[in-house]
């Protein structure tokens, strides 16, 4: 087991974003000395931004645990393309955490900024705080977003959560922002709190809202009612988005119309 402690150092201008796509468990196995991050437009060695402490050894990325501490809310792309191992973030994390990740685990104690797990393929992300906009979404102009794996957000998630979701599971325990699940094509999206204008243009997949949907879109066809498997909360089942000839399934506890 190898434990990599990365403590973010104080920075002169803490608002300039750090892009740290090289922080993945696999990179520490290779014992590379040339790991670097971008601070704005400057490429700087990893140790200029982090205090690095490595304990133990490992022969595969699976046995690596990276622990990020300090002011990490502006550090972007941590765990991008990660395939295995564990990243634990003690505080907040910047945008694009876990982009394209295909395996392993990311655990965030604080809040995550936008595009958490964008276009994710596999693995697990747990965010104990709130997630920003576009959690589990796709990229601009892309037809498909997240395709596999699981994202669980214990707080709230922002607008466009699960946009173009086409596989995998997203669970939000709090509320989600406007137009979440928009363009959804597959996968499973569960919201325990409230949502608004959910699942516009969806063509496939399943979305469950255990709270209230405000401004429910007019183009979903009511199919019936049933009890959800979440303590027997009554749910109304819809199919749609009819405007898009969609065959998605949407279950909501209650709703208001636009």
């Amino acid at each position, binding site marked *: 087991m190898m434990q990599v402690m990365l403590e973010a150092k104080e920075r002169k201008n803490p608002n300039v974003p750090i892009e740290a796509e090289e922080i993945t468990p696999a990179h520490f196995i290779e014992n590379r000395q040339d790991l670097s991050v971008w601070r704005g*437009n400057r490429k700087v060695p990893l140790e200029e931004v982090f205090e690095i402490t490595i304990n133990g050894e490992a022969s595969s990325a699976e046995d690596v645990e990276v622990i990020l501490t300090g002011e990490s809310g502006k550090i972007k792309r941590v765990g991008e393309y990660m395939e295995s191992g564990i990243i634990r973030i003690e505080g907040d994390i910047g945008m694009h955490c876990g982009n394209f990740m295909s395996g392993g685990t990311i655990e965030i104690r604080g809040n995550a900024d936008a595009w958490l797990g964008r276009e994710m393929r596999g693995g697990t992300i747990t965010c104990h705080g709130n997630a920003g906009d576009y959690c589990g979404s796709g990229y*601009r102009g892309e037809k498909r977003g997240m395709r596999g794996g699981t994202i669980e957000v214990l707080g709230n998630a922002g*607008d466009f959560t699960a946009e173009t979701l086409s596989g995998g599971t997203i669970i939000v325990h709090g509320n989600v922002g406007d137009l979440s699940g928009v363009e959804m094509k597959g996968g499973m999206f569960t919201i325990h709190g409230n949502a608004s204008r959910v699942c516009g*243009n969806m063509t496939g997949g399943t979305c469950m809202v255990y709270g209230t949907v405000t*401004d429910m*879109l007019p183009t979903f066809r009511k199919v019936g009612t049933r009890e959800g498997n979440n303590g027997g909360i009554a749910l109304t089942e819809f199919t749609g988005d009819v*405007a898009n000839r969609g065959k998605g399934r949407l279950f909501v506890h209650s709703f208001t119309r636009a």
Partner: protein
Amino acid sequence: MLMNSGRTYKQGEQLYYKESPEYSEQTSLCFINPIDLFTLGIEEGENIEIKTSTGNTVFRTVACYDLVPGEIFLPCGPYANFILPPNTHSTGAPDFKTLEVEVRPTERERVSAWDLLEYEGGTRYDAPPEGCPTISLEGDKTVTDVLCPLCGCVCDDIELGIRDHRIVSCQNGCLLCNAKFLAKNRLITPIKKTVGGWEKVSYEEAIEYTADVLVAAERPLLFGWSGTHGEAQCIGVSIAELIGGVIDNCSSECHGPSIMAIQEVGHPGCTLGQVRNRADVVIYWGSNPIASHPRHMSRYSTYADGFFLDNSFRNRTVIVFDVRKTETAKVADEFVRVRSGGDYAVFSALRAIIQGKEDVLPKSVAGVAKEELIRISRIMLGAKFGTFFTGIGLTQSRGKYKNVRNAIELVDELNRHTKYTLTPMRGHWNVYGTNQTFTYMTGYPYAVDFSHGVAYYNPGETSAIDMLSREEVDACIIIGSDPGAHFPRACNEHLSRIPTIVIDPFPIMSTAVATMHIPVAMTGVDAEGTAYRMDAVPLWVQKVMEPTQPDDARLLSRIYDAVRKRKGMPQIKGEDAGVFGSPVFSTEK
């Protein structure tokens, strides 16, 4: 109450006189339904205070029956933006529309636009106007077929009268056009901010300063570009690449969302000539051309006779979808009032109706009765050639680009039955040009981040308002745009804390938050270059007089050279940074 902000005719007329009290007057009005005035217990003309999570400021009320009770309308400008939160929902465009605000009567007086900028950390520039630096080599003359460098229509039939090296008359244009051509309050020499005021400096000093600032910055932002010509934009992109900066243009806060939608589902566009000659149904959705593009209706739609349509006014059906009964709505054949923020649902509903699935719809959608929607959809389907003009009513209200995407998908649906197109009502004369030049140079239309040496694009992350409100920018160039008047307060507050260089022919609101303002020749008057009309037709904008100041392209080339020198790079002519062989560089030396 719900606040929407947007263009008014009077505000547009004052765009080149922002230091004047009249600009302050026109942008500090609040249009409000008389029923709401009654509820507030005040008379028209009395002041109100409008408050949001960001702040509050005072407006003067104007009674207006075009609005539904519960909604107010503010002209866009420094007042509306003073209370605008910078949240863009990670799309790049803040909530200029459908914003929840608190309104209450107040005894307080309105402040001036300069006052607001000073609250935001700026310093007013109110030196008396220095006049105009142009020279007419041919003496007094009349120039015909001049292009108007103001709105996206880029009208090409303006006639200018020139006496004593100044433009003294302007024929054929609208009021906005007149106001711009006749403006003479140009800035003559570069000015630099000192403690509590401004001092004149030389162009050399200004260029050296700019290069120093750009080279030192870790997160520089080059913003604006829609008020200058394509050749200058190209050099701007080269500078951004050289310094590892972010280059963004005004579309990120206006029609950027339209482009994001186009990236998802394509652009069923056509030229304005097609519309003029063929369209028998014209739909303005969330746009008010009478205020923003005054001659659009007479040149291309409602009143313009076309090859296949004579007596256009009778034979064309004009439909307006809007939240308020705008001037355009009043002259349209049909007006559909959509509840603020309800456009997305209405598009979805229309798509369902056209597929014959109206049974799924509830009795009304966003305040529009289902029967009404069915009736309108019949008019749409009856068209031989229909066209949508979509405005910032869609891109700046909640949902942003997804509204436009839904509009395009409605066009797709209609195209299964007849011919339909969609054109975004681009605001600035060359804002579409920024998207064209940026795209052919970088692959992306705006919000392009070169910090890693390659182009990366993600509105919401690399767009100006987001970057400024997250306070990550450490140096900024503003060119051909005025964020001081059009950005949320938090952005201006940040601009006033970092080195900010404004490049513009006129003193503008952004001057207040800048550390340096470098004046340039004005494209269409004493500078020339390429502009792209709102339908992406490129037009060569000629000058009508000779400059005594550098134009944007020339100034930027000098900055480009100065940056290369500092980086120890071999000196090439900055002119070559842009488009090779462009007339700007080959004729003028």
